[in-house]
């Protein structure tokens, strides 16, 4: 029985939040890795594009709520997600036209693109603070839990339990569906194959009659869409903080690089690796060990490897280790 208690604790505090957070990172990292693979630069503005999409979603959710629109037990924001995606895709295309296409025509180095993307990042962050302000916004309505810890305990009779938040379920299901769709698109459709061909060998793709403008535009559409999904799901699950998206760049880039930058499967797996390791390292194991170890041997201290304040350091450490030991990442992407 004690082992089940320990397992329930770990599920509640590590596995469920880790898989949820990992899904959000995976969606973010997929966008970064696609931009890197097709447009050949590291897009530091990706976090702010997530934020932008989420902001639009929140504004429309408020508008909807003021007219009494809701989705029952699901968050109302889901209803306005397509509109938010539309706006952030438009914003991405605007950025491409105003900023990045200029450097592409000049055939600038990737580092120039990167610096330009940092400029775009600051611009977007400023724009967002103009529109929605710098403070936190909670926009999650609907039912909070599908089942709570108490429900679980009553049902199983254990001392410990885990609850499943609605947003956790939504996040995981949406991510799986989106990834399935994306991999199907890239591997089976003509357009997806032209994207991969363009990413593999640009010159040869041109000689095969692939239209570069179409591929570039499509990449922005997909990246913008994925970014909005990632941002909204993250905001629903936690809370929308305009400042958090700058910090989230680190785990997102780590996820992309750990998996192998430019490789979508790598970004997907990398997201979960980063998220789960953050939680495994910063979790306090006192109670868990209390259940597992023989009577009286349970520890008195918190048994926490690292304070939660340092959770961003975990992705940094993993990033450094991967870059030293296997710079191409787990699934052998291109080296940065």
């Amino acid at each position, binding site marked *: 029985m004690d082992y089940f208690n320990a397992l329930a604790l770990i599920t509640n505090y590590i596995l469920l939040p880790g898989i949820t957070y990992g899904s959000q990172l995976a969606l973010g990292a997929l966008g970064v890795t696609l931009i890197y693979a097709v447009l050949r630069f590291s897009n530091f503005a990706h976090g702010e594009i997530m934020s932008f999409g989420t902001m639009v979603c929140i504004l429309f959710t408020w508008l909807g709520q003021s007219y009494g629109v809701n989705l029952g037990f699901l968050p109302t924001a889901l209803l306005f997600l397509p509109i938010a995606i539309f706006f952030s895709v438009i914003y991405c295309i605007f950025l491409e036209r105003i900023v990045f296409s200029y450097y592409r025509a000049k055939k600038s180095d990737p580092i120039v693109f990167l610096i330009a993307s940092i400029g775009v990042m600051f611009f977007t962050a400023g724009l967002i603070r103009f529109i929605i302000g710098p403070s936190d916004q909670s926009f999650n309505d609907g039912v909070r839990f599908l089942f709570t810890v108490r429900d679980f305990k009553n049902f199983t009779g254990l001392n410990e339990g885990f609850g499943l938040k609605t947003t956790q379920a939504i996040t995981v299901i949406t991510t799986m569906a989106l990834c399935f769709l994306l991999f199907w698109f890239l591997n089976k459709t003509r357009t997806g*194959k032209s994207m991969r061909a363009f990413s593999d*060998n640009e010159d040869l793709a041109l000689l095969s009659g692939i239209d570069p403008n179409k591929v570039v535009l499509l990449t922005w559409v997909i990246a913008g869409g994925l970014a909005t999904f990632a941002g909204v799901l993250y905001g629903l699950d936690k809370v929308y903080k305009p400042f958090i998206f700058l910090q989230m760049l680190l785990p997102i880039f780590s996820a992309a690089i750990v998996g192998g930058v430019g490789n979508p499967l790598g970004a997907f797996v990398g997201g979960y690796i980063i998220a789960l390791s953050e939680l495994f390292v910063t979790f306090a194991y006192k109670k868990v060990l209390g259940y597992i170890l023989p009577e009286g041997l349970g520890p008195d201290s918190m048994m926490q490897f690292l304070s939660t304040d340092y959770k961003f350091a975990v992705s940094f450490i993993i990033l450094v280790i991967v870059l030293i030991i296997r710079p191409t990442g787990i699934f052998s992407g291109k080296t940065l």
Partner: protein
Amino acid sequence: MFLNAENMLGGYGETTILNGCSISVEKGEIAVIVGPNGAGKSTAMRAIFGMLNLQAGKVIFDNQDITSLKPQERVGKGMGFVPQTNNVFTSMTVLENMEIGGFINKDRFEENVQEVFKLFPILQEKEKQLVGELSGGQRQQVAVGRALMTNPKLLMLDEPTAGVSPIVVKELFEKIIEISKTGIAILMVEQNAKQALNIADHGFVLVQGENKYTDKGSNLLANKDVRKAFLGG
């Protein structure tokens, strides 16, 4: 002439590499460009394909003046080009490489892919394999196959035998003869000058971006001066 590139003058930046060289090929024939390093062999081919802006001269293909067309547009007109390096999609399977090549001509995809697989049976065996995992010779076959998928009337090969073993070179040349017999014009740049001239209907010896000798392949092989200067006696 099916392809006639006349008096091409051009290069990169200020310096000219091509100083009025002329290349021509007839349907169903093999033409080979040979010459010492830096003679402008590859540059001549790139100019014919439109990857280099000409300061003077013109390119007539299939009775049309195509001098001002972009490379992509020339592919549409029936030119197939196999670059010397980076000529395959390494992260994609053999079949996917063929598919991408066939984007231009999707109606004839099935027929074309069957023809390519008949020509290179090894590709059919390995159709699900990533091209990056194939040997050099097999990759070269993928590259030629991809170009054939565009239904070219003229196939241009930039040093197709660079870096592959002598046995594979022989095999590759045999395949090239087979391709030319289907009525496709072939233009090659080659390092293996002797072997290449052996199978060539026409040979162009370039020096300093100019035609030094232009003759039938067999005549060039028999020519004392050419042998001495370019073929090692």
